[in-house]
């Protein structure tokens, strides 16, 4: 598992509005890439183009290419649904399915797709996914209870387990801790450290300490002015970007002078 992502000359549009301009970057397998930058700089949009979730918005489209181990996600005949089975996603706010139990939530990717799966297989998948999300011990006695009964941090880890159960190559996280308290945040950050053993992880975060703590590589996005597209300003190892950035804008942002 775990694949390499190559983004080349990517432009993202919402109708006539160009949201992201001219981005090229590479995410190596089994690493964590953090996207940082001020609000509205296009980092979430950028993240969503990695599994074509931006297409949920009508009239959104991209130019350029995004390759997963050489396969173009936007090539002819590509089914976005299949893309998303390889590139999972975790959202800002925990969003477990309220009508389903904890177990059904984890297995949602399988069950919602009408796939047949044997009971022993599904038990194994359930346990493995929950263990991988560091949630197994907390919920193993209430697998049949509604997921809405879990705490916010547990719900978010449930959503991670749900994404893992589809057995993706890449995990995208869109500010996964922004709705959580510090202790739950810590649990998720620890989990990210473990996930990169087997997955490629891309995380969007507003919290620079978090980026510094969890990521190997950091990409800084910024926009030159309001209503202008966001651009990739600087990309490098997290150590380099945080301690010795090449660009003035990066330094200003990281030292808290704007944004």
């Amino acid at each position, binding site marked *: 598992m775990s694949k390499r992502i190559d983004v080349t000359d990517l432009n993202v549009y919402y109708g006539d509005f160009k949201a992201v301009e001219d981005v090229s970057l590479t995410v190596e397998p089994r690493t964590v890439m953090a996207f940082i930058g001020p609000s509205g700089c296009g980092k979430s949009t950028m993240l969503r183009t990695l599994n074509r979730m931006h297409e*949920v918005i009508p009239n959104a489209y991209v130019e350029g290419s995004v390759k997963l181990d050489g396969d173009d996600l936007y090539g002819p005949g590509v089914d976005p*649904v299949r893309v998303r089975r390889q590139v999972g996603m975790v*959202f800002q706010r925990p*969003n477990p399915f*309220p*009508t389903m139990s904890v177990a059904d939530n984890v297995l949602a990717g399988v069950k919602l797709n009408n796939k047949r799966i044997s009971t022993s297989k599904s038990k194994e998948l359930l346990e493995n996914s929950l263990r991988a999300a560091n949630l197994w011990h907390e919920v193993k006695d209430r697998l049949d209870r509604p997921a*809405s009964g879990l705490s916010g941090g547990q719900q978010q880890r449930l959503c991670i387990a749900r994404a893992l159960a589809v057995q993706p190559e890449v995990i995208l996280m869109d500010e996964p801790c922004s709705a959580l308290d510090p202790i739950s945040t810590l649990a998720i950050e620890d989990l990210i450290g473990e996930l990169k053993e087997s997955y490629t992880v891309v995380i969007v975060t507003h919290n620079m300490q978090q980026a510094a703590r969890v990521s190997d590589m950091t990409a800084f996005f910024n926009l030159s002015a309001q209503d202008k597209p966001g651009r990739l300003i600087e990309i490098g190892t997290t150590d380099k970007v945080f301690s010795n950035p090449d660009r003035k804008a990066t330094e200003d942002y990281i030292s808290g002078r704007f944004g």
Partner: protein
Amino acid sequence: MATLTRATSASLTSGRLPSWVTGLLLSVAILGSATFFLAVGSPGLLRILFTGALIFASVMMVASLAVEGRRRAKDRLSGIVVTSAFVLALLPLISLVLSVVRYGSQRFDLQFFIYSMRSVVGEGGGAAHAITGTLWVTGLATVISVPIGILAAIYLVEYGTGPLARSITFFVDVMTGIPSIVAGLFAYSVFVLIFGPGTESGLAGAVALSVLMMPVVVRSTEELLRVVPNELREAAYALGVPKWLTVLKVVLPTALAGIVTGVMLAVARVIGETAPLLIAAGFTQSLNNNPLSGPMMTLPVFVYRSYVDQGSPASAYLERAWAGALTLILIVMILNLAGRLVAARFAPKSGR
């Protein structure tokens, strides 16, 4: 407790009538009015209440003007007026329920539910044929309109953009205002065209009711689908679930309780329709279990026909009409209550 002596001081309660004055004045006014009418010898509940309310309002106004001034007095008057309007609106409901129960209970017996009117003249007989007919017609109407209605709502919420969606929304709203008699004429002319003049059938009645039911189903379902959080759709998409399965297995189940409630309220609304059924489904004295041919009696039409086509003794026919009305009201109330229970009981608990 605030007292009138303190009203002269500069405290926050100054210049206000203490709260117990309202209750006191109201009871005194009603009692006074009751004593007066009893003494005159013409006690009537409505008369007593109306006069009592008038006395109360005028005394209250004088008191408020004296103690609280013009602005407060106006405010009090507005309160009295809107409260009386509410009581006034309740009167017909109370009167209607009381009379339906009183007159309807006389023939609300077992015979009423197991006998039809076949070869019954005068007393006896029942509404079994009308009740089964109502089940047939509303059942068929539900089968026709619910799937189309729900799918149309799905179109509006999940797919619809641009002029088509806008015009569907607009005309669905307009359709909720179609007179039911027009729906009946429509169904009648369609079936006459296909099966020849004079055709009346349960199915034609069901088509008429569908025209009335569909917009209601679309409207309520649409509202419910719109409140399903987008986050759930995104969560499903991100798991690699295609849109149609997301709608079928995530969006619909989340809104299911509300949709069921909406359907039950829609059924409750059309089950009492009389005019379109009178025209499209006709009327008969016998049980007819074939919705494809022959007139089919329904409960509302039974009530109407029992009333307009009184034989002798007339009381037998009137009692059957009222018993039918009672049955109808009970069905409608049960559907309403059950609908609300479903909504309250099975609504998914979102978040914490």
